[in-house]
């Protein structure tokens, strides 16, 4: 096969030039013959004879062509193929070395490529639509708040932008994270829907897979056209891909909609990193998809904007124009729009705020992958160096036979190149496998569903892999190649085992120091994260696997105020009598980071530093909430059934707040003003916060869920906490059934154990832990192998010297100590450098992922390096033993 490939290559590169040259020779041949014949004719030879004689005189045409072919030099490609053949032969000759090197590179390259495809999927991929490069996102900007938050606009502002923009050929509005409870004759289920303007479809150049999309006319009068477009997936899984589904009615959040069309297969909305969309409804039906304010009114910031740049317009053009329009809006509507602006950017990657969230962890990943690649390259370079020493004779002979230094260097480079490419190919498999692993972390929502992220490999990533493999080939090959060819010919030929080879050994040992240092740093970091995750999963004192969380939102299906509250009461009553349920308690938000609302509290009796108002977390919780979580109460009591909506206004505070306001410990019975309303403190509870190494504990208050201000119809929406005894699996199905028995229209969503939610919420810690452990372990194994190989090689190489020392009276232990000293110096330096790097680099870098463990925690930092040190000692011991048991006479005789 190689032979065929080679011929094909040669033919391809040469054929064009060859054809021209052949043509040239043929033309010259004809000219020559004609001239020769002319000459003959001039001397009186007949016409035909002249021509014949000319041909005879010319001689063999074939020999001319042959002469031309001989003239040509061996082309570079031929030489390259020759080198490649030699390289492949060498790889076959040393299968152990080849496997070690290829596997090492495959891991380094594979993990690197996977991380790059992840970054590509999260930050760079354009929308999966036609001419996606011209699709832009226009976000609202709010002073003093991060640009990376992608704030939505109010619908009237959208209309103004659409009407007046010239740089945007079209502008569509959408709200793509609408929770929709769908009821079909076959059952009810939850999907994520989108509320969109009619031009959404045309702007994205979508064609319906069946039926049609709605028109601008159908999106004009609020409430007039309840029309729905389904995703292809939903149509297939819930409607049997049946054309009769078009025109059928489905209930969406309690209102009947008519299905009019199906989206093209694979299109799941324009927002990446969120639950994929399954249903699209017109903005004229906004009330169905969004319930916190009127989605079409000024002041209700809910729509995101998608634009398509007009021909010839660039993003800066659009930005300049939108800036002007935004300032006009700010002038016209100072109450809502003062200082507000808008930011135009290319529609790439997942939702911008998710990008901001994932960026640090992806950087960490990239850093880890780069380090592993570095260790892998150092390892392969070490292997190649050692082999280079062993091959000195071969190289010297090549040189002696006339190969130039460049030629030999090229040969060695080609060898490492072939090795790197083989590693790259194997790395592709590692990349796919790693990608699957990463998908589990980045592609899953907090309720366990798949997110709208396309993790597929694309050409860019493959190119990256090939490029890095090639670079690795050069990086690993150049030093050994130069080292090997620097050797002087004569000593190497005379002496089978050259001396210690100071430079080479030092370079190689330097490489091992680097590897040991990197693995120590990674292992120390992973030690911190292992402890951190242990702390996180236990949470601030609760037993997360005994608590089931679920979200119950009757307001989604239009429940009015009192009916919603009554419904929640009924749900809790029925759940608390369910076998296996210990207690059930409603709460406004789960006890997880990012959910807690903030409020202002005042302590009327306080003086000094804490007088006046102070910011505090605020959570609405029901009776027996702390019993449900299992954290209990430190002082006083928690809410019970006597604290109804008409009971006394009471409040529970956390430890931090109690300590701050009542250092004398008399919190219970004191008064506190929360959000302007005075309340009696009835209890003190433990701090229920997940705090990383950078965060101080925050004050928190707990108010009674039933004592909320009931003007909003969604305040009754609840995160229900259910404490269970026994395994969660049965109850995770039983609880929604119990609720559906009350009203099947009310969506029960996000039913999971608190443990699962924590694991998701801290997936970054989990991921970082897995990564650093994996990377660190890998680097550890690689560096130990490298260390062992280097020392074993050292002993082998210095055999004669050691034997002479023995013969001259050195003791065996003296010789072993020599080896031991060398090895422990390498490991010692590596450990010291690695630990310093962990202490001053990795620890602080990971601080925001460290919960309940200090970045300088000695136990966590030292555990990994300790193991490494022990294994390294073993790696040193074996070669040292060989030196100990060496028989000097045998060695010297064998020379």
């Amino acid at each position, binding site marked *: 096969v190689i032979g065929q490939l080679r011929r094909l290559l040669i033919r391809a590169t040469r054929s064009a030039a060859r054809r021209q*040259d052949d043509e*040239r*020779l043929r*033309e*010259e*041949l004809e*000219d*020559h013959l*004609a*001239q*020769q014949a*002319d000459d003959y004719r001039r001397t009186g030879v007949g016409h035909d004879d002249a021509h014949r004689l000319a041909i005879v005189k*010319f*001689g*063999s*045409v074939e*020999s*001319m062509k042959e*002469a*031309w072919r001989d*003239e*040509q030099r061996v082309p570079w490609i031929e030489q390259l193929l020759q080198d490649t053949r030699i390289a492949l032969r060498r790889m076959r000759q040393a299968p152990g070395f080849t496997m070690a090197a290829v596997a090492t590179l495959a891991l380094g390259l594979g993990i690197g490529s996977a991380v790059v495809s992840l970054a590509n999927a999260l930050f760079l991929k354009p929308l999966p639509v036609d001419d996606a490069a011209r699709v832009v996102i226009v976000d609202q900007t709010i002073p003093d708040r991060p640009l990376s938050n992608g704030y939505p606009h109010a619908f009237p502002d959208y209309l103004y932008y659409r009407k007046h923009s010239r740089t945007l050929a079209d502008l569509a509005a959408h709200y793509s994270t609408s929770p929709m409870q769908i009821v079909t004759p076959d059952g009810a289920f939850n999907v994520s829907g989108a509320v969109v303007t009619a031009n959404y479809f045309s702007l994205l150049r979508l064609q319906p897979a069946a039926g049609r999309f709605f028109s601008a006319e159908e999106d004009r009068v609020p409430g007039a056209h309840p029309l729905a477009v389904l995703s292809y997936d939903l149509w297939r899984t819930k409607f049997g891909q049946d054309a009769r589904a078009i025109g059928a009615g489905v209930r969406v959040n309690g209102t009947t909609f008519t299905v009019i069309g199906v989206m093209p297969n694979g299109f799941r909305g324009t927002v990446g990193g969120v639950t994929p969309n399954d249903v699209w409804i017109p903005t004229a039906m906004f009330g169905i998809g969004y319930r916190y304010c009127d989605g079409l009114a000024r002041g209700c910031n809910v729509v995101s904007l998608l634009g398509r740049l007009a021909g010839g317009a660039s993003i800066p053009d659009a930005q300049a124009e939108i800036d002007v329009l935004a300032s006009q809006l700010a002038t016209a509507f100072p109450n809502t729009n003062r200082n507000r602006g808008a930011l135009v950017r290319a529609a790439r990657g997942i939702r911008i705020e998710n990008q901001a969230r994932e960026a640090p962890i992806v950087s960490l990943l990239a850093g880890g992958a780069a380090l592993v690649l570095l260790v892998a390259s150092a390892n392969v370079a070490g292997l190649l160096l050692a082999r280079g020493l062993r091959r000195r004779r071969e190289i010297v002979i090549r040189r002696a036979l006339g190969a130039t230094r460049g030629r030999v260097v090229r040969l060695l480079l080609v060898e490492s190149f072939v090795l790197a490419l083989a590693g790259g190919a194997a790395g592709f498999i590692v990349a796919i496998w790693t990608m699957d692993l990463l998908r589990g972390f980045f592609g899953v929502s907090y309720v366990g569903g798949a997110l709208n992220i396309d993790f597929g490999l694309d050409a860019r990533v493959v190119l990256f892999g090939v490029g890095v493999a090639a670079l690795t080939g050069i990086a690993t090959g150049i030093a050994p190649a130069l080292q090997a060819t620097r050797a002087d010919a004569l000593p190497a030929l005379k002496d089978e085992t050259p001396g210690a080879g100071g430079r080479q050994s030092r370079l190689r040992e330097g490489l091992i120091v680097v590897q040991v240092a990197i693995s120590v740093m990674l292992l120390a970091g992973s030690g911190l994260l292992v402890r951190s995750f242990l702390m996180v999963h236990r949470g601030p004192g609760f037993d997360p696997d005994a608590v089931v969380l679920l979200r119950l939102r009757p307001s989604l299906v239009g429940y009015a105020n009192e009916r919603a509250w009554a419904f929640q009461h009924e749900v809790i009553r029925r759940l608390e009598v369910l076998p296996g349920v210990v207690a059930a308690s409603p709460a406004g938000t789960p006890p997880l980071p990012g959910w807690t609302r903030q409020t202002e509290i005042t302590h009327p009796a306080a003086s000094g530093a804490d007088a006046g108002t102070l910011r505090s977390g605020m959570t609405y919780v029901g009776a027996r909430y702390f019993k449900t979580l299992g954290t209990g109460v430190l002082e006083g009591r928690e809410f019970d059934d006597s604290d109804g909506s008409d009971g006394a206004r009471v409040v529970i505070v956390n430890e931090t707040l109690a300590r701050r306001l009542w250092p004398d410990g008399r919190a219970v019975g004191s008064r506190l003003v929360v959000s302007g309303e005075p309340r009696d403190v009835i209890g003190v509870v433990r701090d229920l916060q997940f705090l990383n190494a950078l965060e101080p504990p925050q004050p928190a208050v707990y108010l009674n869920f039933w004592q909320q201000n009931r003007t909003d119809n969604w305040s009754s929406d609840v995160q229900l906490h259910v404490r269970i005894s026994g395994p969660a699996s049965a109850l995770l199905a039983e609880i929604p059934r119990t609720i559906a028995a009350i009203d099947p229209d009310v969506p029960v969503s996000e039913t999971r154990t608190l443990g699962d939610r924590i694991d998701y919420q801290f997936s970054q810690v989990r991921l970082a832990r897995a990564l650093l452990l994996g990377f660190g372990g890998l680097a550890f194994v690689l560096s130990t192998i490298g260390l062992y190989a280097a020392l074993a090689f050292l002993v082998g190489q210095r055999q004669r010297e050691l034997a002479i020392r023995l013969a001259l009276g050195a003791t065996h232990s003296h010789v072993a100590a020599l080896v031991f000293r060398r090895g422990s110096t390498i490991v010692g330096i590596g450990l010291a450098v690695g630990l310093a790097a962990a202490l001053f680099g990795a620890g602080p870098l990971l601080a925001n992922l460290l919960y309940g463990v200090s970045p300088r925690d000695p136990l966590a930092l030292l555990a990994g390096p300790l193991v490494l040190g022990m294994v390294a000692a073993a790696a040193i011991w074996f070669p040292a033993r060989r030196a100990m048991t060496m028989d000097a006479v045998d060695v010297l005789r064998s020379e």
Partner: protein
Amino acid sequence: VKKKMDVLQGTLALMVLKTLDVLGPLHGYGLARRIEQISGNRLALNPGTLYPLLLRLEHEGAIASERAASENNRKARYYRLTAAGRRQLQAETQDWRQTTALIDRFFAVKAEDL
């Protein structure tokens, strides 16, 4: 009939370059005739060697060529020396002189000289 010599390997290029240098642009056939003539007809030039050589020299940039009408109204390819070719000719002339001078010394040597 005098026995004709084969061209010594490597020297034909030098002859071609020198001939073009002295006589200006020539076509292949003319060049062959001229070289034979200059050699006093002691050289038998094999056209099968000449044309590949011309092609190589052109690839190397020492000569350039173009098709033009020949003296008897035929089309033919005319070769001329380039600047690079002229430099190459100078260098090779120098080399050749040194080599022959060296060889001459060996031929001239007698036992009593040493």
